[in-house]
């Protein structure tokens, strides 16, 4: 392998990651910070960090690595802006749990819309793991590494989210 090829491959490594993950990461970051512009900055920072990384360090788990770094960066941004409340789970659980149940307020018009609106009424930490699981396809174990929560905590969050959705969804059915 000559130098030129090595150079090309090092480039390809990052380019491939950009092609594969830029959109899903931007979607994830937008959810975290609630702002697509900031999300794009965060995702760019994430790829810049990837470039500084020896390929061996992320070997075999690029997706997990990118989501982890992206999340850290997003939390940094939120912290700087004093918006961390969004992610302090205890508080969010309590606040959201006291909100009125959406069940009757929603028209059972279209399954997906209904579900989507129900998801958006879940506490943010449940929404996040739910999306990592069902949208990004990560396993509990991978989500645990991305979010720095224990595997069992991830299991509890997903359990709460799906059992609540199940109950509300059942309430929607005629």
């Amino acid at each position, binding site marked *: *392998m000559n*130098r030129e090829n*090595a*150079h090309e*491959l*090092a*480039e*390809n*490594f*990052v*380019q*491939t990651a950009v*092609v*594969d993950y*830029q*959109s*899903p990461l*931007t*979607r994830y970051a*937008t959810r975290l910070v*609630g*702002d*697509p*512009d900031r999300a*794009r900055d965060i995702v760019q920072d994430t*790829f*810049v960090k990837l*470039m*500084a990384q*020896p*390929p*061996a360090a*992320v*070997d*075999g788990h*690029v997706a997990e690595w990118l989501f982890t770094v992206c999340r850290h960066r997003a939390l940094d941004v939120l912290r700087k802006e004093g*918006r961390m409340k*969004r992610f302090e789970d205890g508080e969010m659980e309590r606040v959201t749990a006291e909100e009125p149940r959406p069940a009757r307020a929603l028209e059972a018009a279209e399954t*997906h819309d209904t*579900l*989507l609106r129900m998801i*958006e009424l879940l506490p943010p930490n449940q*929404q996040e793991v739910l999306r990592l699981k*069902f*949208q*990004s*396809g*990560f396993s*509990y174990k991978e989500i645990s590494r991305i979010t720095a929560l*224990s595997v*069992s905590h991830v*299991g509890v969050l*997903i*359990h709460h989210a*799906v*059992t609540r*959705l*199940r109950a509300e*969804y*059942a309430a929607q059915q005629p």
Partner: protein
Amino acid sequence: MNISKITSDDPRLTAFALGELGAAERVAIAAAIKDDPAAQAFVEQIRALGGELSAMLAKEPLPVVRATAGVAAESTENKTATPVRDDYERRKMVRFPYYIVAGLAAACFAVLFVQQQTLATKRQEIAKAEQQRRNVERAASRMALPYAAQAGSPSILEVSLGDDAHAVSMPAFSNSPTSPPSVPVQIAGQASNIEAYAYQADNAYLAVAEAPLSTFSMEVDTAGYSNLRRFLKGGQRPPREAVRIEELVNYFPYRYTVPKDAATPFAASMEVASAPWNPSHRLVRIGLKGRELSLAERPALADQLSGTRVTIAKDVKLQVEFNPARVKSYRLIGYENRMLKKEDFNNDKIDAGEIGAGHTVTALYEVVPVGVDSPTEAVPAGDALKYSEGKAGKFPESAELLTLKVRYKAPTSDVSSKLVFPLVDSGAEFATASQDFKFAAAVASFGMMLRDSPHKGAVTFDSVLGWAEDGLGEDAGGYRHEFMSLVKQAKACSG
């Protein structure tokens, strides 16, 4: 593990429904809900809901991050759950001309790529090109990331590596950051466009003379099997790239020998017989079984949740050393994205998989014995560094086929230990192999068929069914019977 009763308040039941449990826990929970229609109904509902959620979330717009960034940003913005923003920011957002956003994005990417080139140039001195090639392939082929495919979106690519994984074709969009990459774009998942998987070519045969050591992390996720079931129950043959053989094989519990004493975290059960799809080849089964917890060690009731996932060994890495006197070439079946470099085996800083109490992990190798025509290319005279002249240096005429070395760390330790297990091939035929061996071979060959593997040999759905039937055993929990019904469904879909 014994669970007498499980309720729908228990997160383990959700984890069970979503295919997130290892074999031992899965068996325990299946047994606990066997006579509990309410719990079974709950599991079915959670599975159905999971399917709805995946389908629905897949349809959420993906931000289009290049030329049309502004438009996509707006639609995403509208759907954001709880936008935390004051009025000033909102007005600013609305007034901000999107073409500038797009222009800025383009400019940022130009900077990004200049930086990238600089970094890459610096790195090329030290980076091993071969390693990078593998990284490129792996980055491209991360399988478990189904996401929405928007029509015409250049961001959703399936990079098809083909059977020759060396022929990696990548977009060269650094020259023109705002135009779609010029690679063939293929969206997996047919009309629904819901899931995109990157195809990862099967591990190739490696010549023992060149690569006597095969090293990988025994880390298995079994979600692939649920995925496969979902496709087949829906009357659809899964896309080949969605089929992960090691995930299928490891979905099933096997009755491997338990470790002799509490000081040993796991035992290895190895078996070798002819490969049913190619009888001139040998099939090697490596099974690891984690030690069961003693009653005293079981966590208190309050801890049951985490207790079922007690890790008894972490960073479990396997290295198989093949004896060139017996083996001409070999391939590891599945585990395409779990391969490690041989030097990673002894490097305690490299993470790997964990083994939980009572869990089993299985890996299969297809081996071409010396004296059999090898499917590999002619082997250049490399320096065979093991059995013949390695550190051990004592087995030049060994009868052993291979030696399995397992490196692991105790759950709280940073320093690894090593276990060594040699395997001698007694020349067994497939017909006389154990039931677990036959069943695992049937599952692997089914995976090879669905992946249209170049190594599938003479396999047919009917032969898979025959081998699975021979390997049924007691089939506690009915998993093996269910597998057979899936094979029949696949046959019907393919007919």
